[in-house]
């Protein structure tokens, strides 16, 4: 009986010959991650347990990215707790402001997470690393504390849904639209407790940036993880970044899936997720006239260099509409510098955009772009829940970077075709 990539990675990390969906395993973790919101609780639990040392200082990763640069005194205290813990434990992977980035953009970029890894992170978008062919899932702070002590975590082996994308991508359609369309189809609990394995000709050709975007939003369908079997594109991405050896796993041809769902992408146009759930998607042609107040381009979903290039491509020679704000947030310091070198910053500044240092900031209504009562935003982020970006009476519409950039110029939701 064949196995999926997920079952193989989990079996190896649990020291089992093979594992079955539904089985509960205790598996060793390659990387355990926390941020400035979730790690403080984990650190307190770690200390309460009377523990002196983390299981491996190279495998516990702390990234202050949510409310950094510190937005207020309590946030500064939380970030300080991380800093002191990182120093005391001599953690190899602690990233201070000036060196940091949005965790799920930063870790792959630095070669910290790699194909075949088992990664847990106290952040729900930890599922992003599945794009590298790793098993990667979000957990809570207490889980993180336990993993920092033992180097292990308990997991129920998930069933896998296989998604097959075929056909030719339409203009302005990318990874973001494929995953929004998928969530719109199966719903926000359509993959509850399950792994989403993304396959097909379209995925085979999709660049890493699009793959990260897709795996990143598996959680928005309730998924435990999203995963893409590694290939030449994966290897090209990791070969010069990897800081240690890695292993490529593949799904067997006769692996068992609980469901197989096929999409012809030639029928998919750019997608917009309407408030207040990522499943409320409509094609751009069906959105109607929705005036907007703010646009955010960035986040762990779409804050990569390719995303900023797409936005710049649309914004070149254009201006943001009057009384509309455009906030652009490069995902990491490297992306920030690279965007500057490539001249993207000039395009953004000429268009009247504000460029921020890397932070999760507005995505979760933290800072750097919080919405007022009644305001509407288009964002390349991942969630549009009630009050996600600010006032409970504000609204967030999720879209890809090209659509977001065009919407900023139009002052309403729209496509680059309209410019």
């Amino acid at each position, binding site marked *: 009986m064949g196995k999926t990539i997920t079952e193989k990675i989990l079996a190896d990390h649990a020291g089992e010959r093979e594992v079955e969906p539904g089985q*509960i395993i205790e598996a060793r973790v390659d990387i355990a991650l926390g941020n400035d*919101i*979730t790690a*403080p*609780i984990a650190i*307190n*639990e770690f200390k*309460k*347990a009377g*523990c002196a*040392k983390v*299981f*491996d200082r190279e495998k516990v990763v702390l990234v202050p990215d*949510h*409310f950094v640069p510190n*937005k*207020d005194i*309590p*946030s500064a205290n*939380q970030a300080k707790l991380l800093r002191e813990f990182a120093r005391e434990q001599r953690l190899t992977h602690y990233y201070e402001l000036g060196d940091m980035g949005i965790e799920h953009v930063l870790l792959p970029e630095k070669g910290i997470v790699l194909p075949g890894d088992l990664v847990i*992170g*106290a*952040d*729900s978008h*930890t599922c992003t690393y599945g794009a590298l062919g790793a098993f990667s899932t*979000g*957990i*809570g*702070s*207490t*889980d993180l*504390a*336990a993993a920092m*002590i*033992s180097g292990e975590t*308990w997991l129920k082996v998930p069933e896998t849904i296989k998604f097959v994308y075929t056909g030719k991508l339409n203009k302005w359609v990318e990874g973001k639209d494929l995953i929004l369309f998928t969530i719109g189809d199966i719903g*926000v*609990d359509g993959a*509850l*407790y399950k792994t989403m394995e993304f396959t097909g000709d379209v995925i085979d050709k999709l660049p890493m940036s699009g793959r990260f975007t897709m795996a990143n939003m598996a*959680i928005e369908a*309730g998924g*435990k993880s999203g995963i893409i079997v590694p290939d030449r594109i994966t290897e090209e991405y990791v070969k010069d970044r990897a800081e240690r050896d890695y292993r490529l796993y593949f799904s067997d041809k006769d692996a068992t899936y609980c469901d197989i769902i096929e999409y012809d992408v030639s029928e998919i146009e750019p997608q917009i997720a309407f408030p207040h*759930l990522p499943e409320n998607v409509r094609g751009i042609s069906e959105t109607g006239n929705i005036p907007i107040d703010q646009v955010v381009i960035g986040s762990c979903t779409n804050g990569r260099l390719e995303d900023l290039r797409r936005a710049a491509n649309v914004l070149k020679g254009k201006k943001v509409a009057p009384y509309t704000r455009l906030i652009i947030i490069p995902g990491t310091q490297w992306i920030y510098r690279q965007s500057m070198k490539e001249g993207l910053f000039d395009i953004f500044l000429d268009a009247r955009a504000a460029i921020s240092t890397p932070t999760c900031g507005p995505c*979760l*209504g*933290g800072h750097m772009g*919080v919405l007022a009562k009644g305001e509407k935003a288009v964002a390349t982020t991942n*969630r549009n*829940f*009630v*009050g*996600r970006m*600010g006032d*409970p009476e504000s609204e967030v519409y999720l879209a890809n970077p090209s659509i977001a950039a065009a919407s900023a110029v139009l002052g309403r939701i729209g496509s680059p075709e309209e410019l």
Partner: protein
Amino acid sequence: MRFRGKVWKFGADVDTDAIIPARHLNTSDPGELARHCMENANPSFAKEVKEGDIIFAKENFGCGSSREHAPIAIKASGISCVVAGSFARIFYRNSLNMALPIMECPEAVEITEEGDEVEVNLGKGEIINHTRHKTFECQPLPPFMQKLVESGGLMGYIKQKSGLQRELKPK
């Protein structure tokens, strides 16, 4: 473990930003988080919830973020137990890890309304709706999760295990 209390009823897909908005995540103090619990879903909840009350919600309760602040806020608000049609997986995990009692029972959620008087028996996997005179049988917790709870949550379990491990392979 048995709980008896008044029901607060919520719909499907109650997300963690509804349970505890991120604007309050600059602290992990349970009392402070409780003051804003359910703020984006029902602004009167935090003021009116009574010790021992029980949350009933439809499918996918706790979807979204991994923030443990969500079960912490619910627990600190005085809620004794959450019954849902289904739970989002990270919320489910977090609740068990920190000993917030939860139970999946779509049938009971379907007929129970806000303000009903209910009794939840976790060990037996039973819910009695005293207002509507109905009894429901639900799935008890799987054995491994029961073991976690018996060890006093995940930290208790890990402390026992890692004590053993450190003797075997010192780092």
